[in-house]
C-alpha cells in the first residue's frame, strides 16, 4: 500500500494554523477512489511521514484536505505550495452517509471539526430538495478562527439554516457568544425526523451528542479521532475499546461509543 503522488493545485489559508490544499493526481489513472464524505486519507509529506487527514471537499478527481499544523508531518503539509508533491493513500474509514432524502439534517461542527463535515454539507446542498430542514451549527474559538468563512454566507443562500457561536468574542463581533449547545435552543422543537452529524474535539462531541440525544434526535453520528499509523487495520494504534477507528470509524453511531468515550484513558 504505497502512496500515490498528487500535485498541490491550490492552497488556501483558513486560519493562523490551518491550511486547505486542493490535490490532483499527476496521473488520473492512479487516482484514488472517490472518497465518501467523512472518510480520510493518509497524506504523505515526502520523506517526513504520514498523517490521517479527513477529506474536506471534492472537485472532480481533485480532493480538498484541510490540515492543522500540530506536529512535524502536518506542519510540513501546511507548508506545501502549489506545484509541490504530496502522497495520498486511501480513502479509508466509514462515511457520514447523508442518505437518500426524507430526513432533516443537522450538522454540528466544533472548530476544525467543520472540515470533515464539509463534504457532507456540500452533498446535502447539492441535493437540497430531497431533504427537509438542513441546519449547520458552528462553534469556534474566536471570530478569527472560523474556517471556510467565505462559504458560510453561500450556505444560507442555498437553504441551510446557519448558526455560529464563538467561545470568546473580539470587539466588533455581534454574533452569538457561548458554547455550541446554546445554539440548540434556537432549533425547531420537533427533532424526531433529524439525523445529526457531530464533529469536533472529543469533549465537544460528547456534550453536544448527549444533548442532541436528550432532546429527542433519534440518530446521532460522530467522528472519532485516534492515533493512526496505517489506516488498514493492521497496526493496532487506533483502538478505542472494541472499535478500530480506521476500520469501524471514524464515523460511528453515538450510542455505540458513548460508553467507551466516558472511560478515562481507554
Amino acid at each position, binding site marked *: *500500500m*504505497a*502512496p500515490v*503522488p*498528487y*500535485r498541490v493545485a491550490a492552497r488556501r489559508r483558513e486560519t493562523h494554523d490551518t491550511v486547505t490544499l486542493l490535490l490532483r493526481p*499527476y*496521473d488520473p489513472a492512479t487516482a484514488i477512489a472517490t472518497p465518501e464524505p467523512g472518510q480520510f486519507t493518509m497524506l*504523505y509529506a*515526502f*520523506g*517526513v*511521514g*504520514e498523517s490521517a487527514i479527513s477529506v474536506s471537499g471534492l472537485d472532480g478527481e481533485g480532493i480538498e484536505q484541510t490540515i492543522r499544523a*500540530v506536529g512535524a508531518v502536518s506542519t510540513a503539509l501546511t507548508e506545501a505550495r502549489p506545484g509541490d*508533491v504530496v*502522497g495520498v493513500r486511501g480513502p479509508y474509514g466509514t462515511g457520514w452517509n447523508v442518505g437518500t432524502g426524507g430526513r432533516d439534517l443537522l450538522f454540528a461542527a466544533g472548530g476544525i471539526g467543520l472540515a470533515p463535515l464539509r463534504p457532507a454539507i456540500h452533498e446535502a446542498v447539492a441535493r437540497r430538495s430531497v431533504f427537509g430542514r438542513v441546519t449547520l451549527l458552528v462553534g469556534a474559538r474566536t471570530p478569527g478562527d472560523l474556517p471556510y468563512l467565505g462559504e458560510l454566507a453561500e450556505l444560507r443562500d442555498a437553504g441551510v439554516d446557519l448558526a455560529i457561536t464563538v467561545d470568546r468574542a473580539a470587539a466588533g463581533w455581534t454574533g452569538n457568544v457561548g458554547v455550541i449547545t446554546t445554539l440548540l435552543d434556537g432549533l425547531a422543537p420537533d427533532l424526531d425526523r433529524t439525523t445529526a452529524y457531530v464533529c469536533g474535539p472529543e469533549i465537544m462531541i460528547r456534550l453536544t451528542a448527549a444533548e442532541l440525544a436528550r432532546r429527542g434526535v433519534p440518530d446521532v453520528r460522530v467522528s472519532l*479521532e*485516534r*492515533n493512526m*499509523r*496505517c489506516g*488498514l*487495520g*493492521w*497496526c*493496532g*494504534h487506533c*483502538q478505542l*475499546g*472494541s472499535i*478500530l477507528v480506521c*476500520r469501524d470509524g471514524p464515523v460511528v453511531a453515538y450510542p455505540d461509543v458513548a460508553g467507551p468515550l466516558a*472511560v*478515562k*484513558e*481507554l
Partner: protein
Amino acid sequence: MSLVLDGLDPLVRELRDRGYRVIGPTVRDGAIVLGELTGADELPWGVGVELAAGRYRLRERGDDAAFGHSAGPQSWKPYLRPPRQKLWDARRTERGFEVREPEEEPVRYAFLGVRPCDLRALEVTDRVLGGGRYADTAYTARRDRAFVIVVNCTEPGETCFCASMGTGPGAESGYDLALTERAGPRYVADAGTDEGAAVLAAIPHAEADDGTVAAARADVAAAAGRMGRTMPEADLRDLLAARLGSPRWDDVASRCLTCGNCTMVCPTCFCTTVEDVTDVTGDHAERWRTWDSCFDLDFTHLGAGPVRGTPRSRYRQWLTHKLGTWHDQFGSSGCVGCGRCIVWCPVGIDLTEEVAALHAEGDGA
C-alpha cells in the same frame, strides 16, 4: 494413517533438500530459542526448562527428548513478520515521486516444533492480517509458503494454560505434519497435507501399530490435566468489559514497568509502527515498518499527548484487548495460553492471576 519416525535427521535433511530453511528450537545464550537448523543434532536434545513467573532456566532432563520444553523467548512471529521490514522506497521525479516496493525474496521456511498453542497463534494472526478488507500480502505470502510441523505436547510447562484456552495440548488440523515425541526418541507422525504425506513417504518410516498410536494420544490427553496454570472459566470478553474501572488495574500498575516484554514474546501481538526516512538530498525516501507495543508511551499520541498516559491504562489496554475486545475485532480470543508473557515479565505478572482477581470481584459483590 500414523507412521513412526526414528530420530529426526532424515526429516531435516529432506526438508532442506526440498529448498526449505528449517527453523526449530536450539540452545543459545542460556535459552532455547528458534534458529535455523542445518541438522537435527542442533535440536535441544535432553534440555528442559524450569519456568515460573519472571523466571526461565535451562535444566538437564536426563533423557533424550528434543521437545521437552516450552515458553522460549520467541514465537514464530519474527519469521513471518520480521521486526523491521522495508515497505517501499521512493525517489522524486518530475511527476511527483516513484515508489518501488521491494521484491519479496522467496524464502520458504519449514517450522519444526510448532506447539499447538503456537499453531493457533498463527491462525489468529491469519485472521488479523489476512481476514480483513486489506490483506498484508507480505505476511500471507510467507505464511502460505511455510511448511508447518506441529509437535504435540505431552509435558506442559509450569506456566502453560493451553487447555483452558482451548488451544492444546494437541492439534487436530492446520499443519503439514504433526509429531508426538516418545521415548527413543521416536515420533508418531501424521500428515495433514499432501505435501506432508509426500515428505513422510520420502524418509525412512514404519507404520505405527494401534497400541503406539493410542499411547501417544493418551500422553497428549493426559497433558491436558497437568497444566501449570488455568484461565478462569468465564466469558472473558464480558468480564473484562465490565471491569474497566476495577481497582485491580491500579494494583497491577504498581508492579508493571510497561517494558513491553510481554508484547514482544507474545505470538499474537501484532502492533507495528512506520518510520519514514530520507537521505541527505531529500530526493530519496524509504518507509520501514517495525514492531511496536501498546505499552509505549507514544503509542496513542494525539494532539498534545498520549490518550493512554498512565501505566494503568496501558496494562489495561493490553489485557482487555488480548482477552476481550479481540473477540469483537477478530472473532476469537487473542490469547493462546502459551505462558510466555508470564515467564518473560521481569516482575512476574501473571495474567491468569490478574484475570482470576478480576473474576473474583464479581462474586458476592
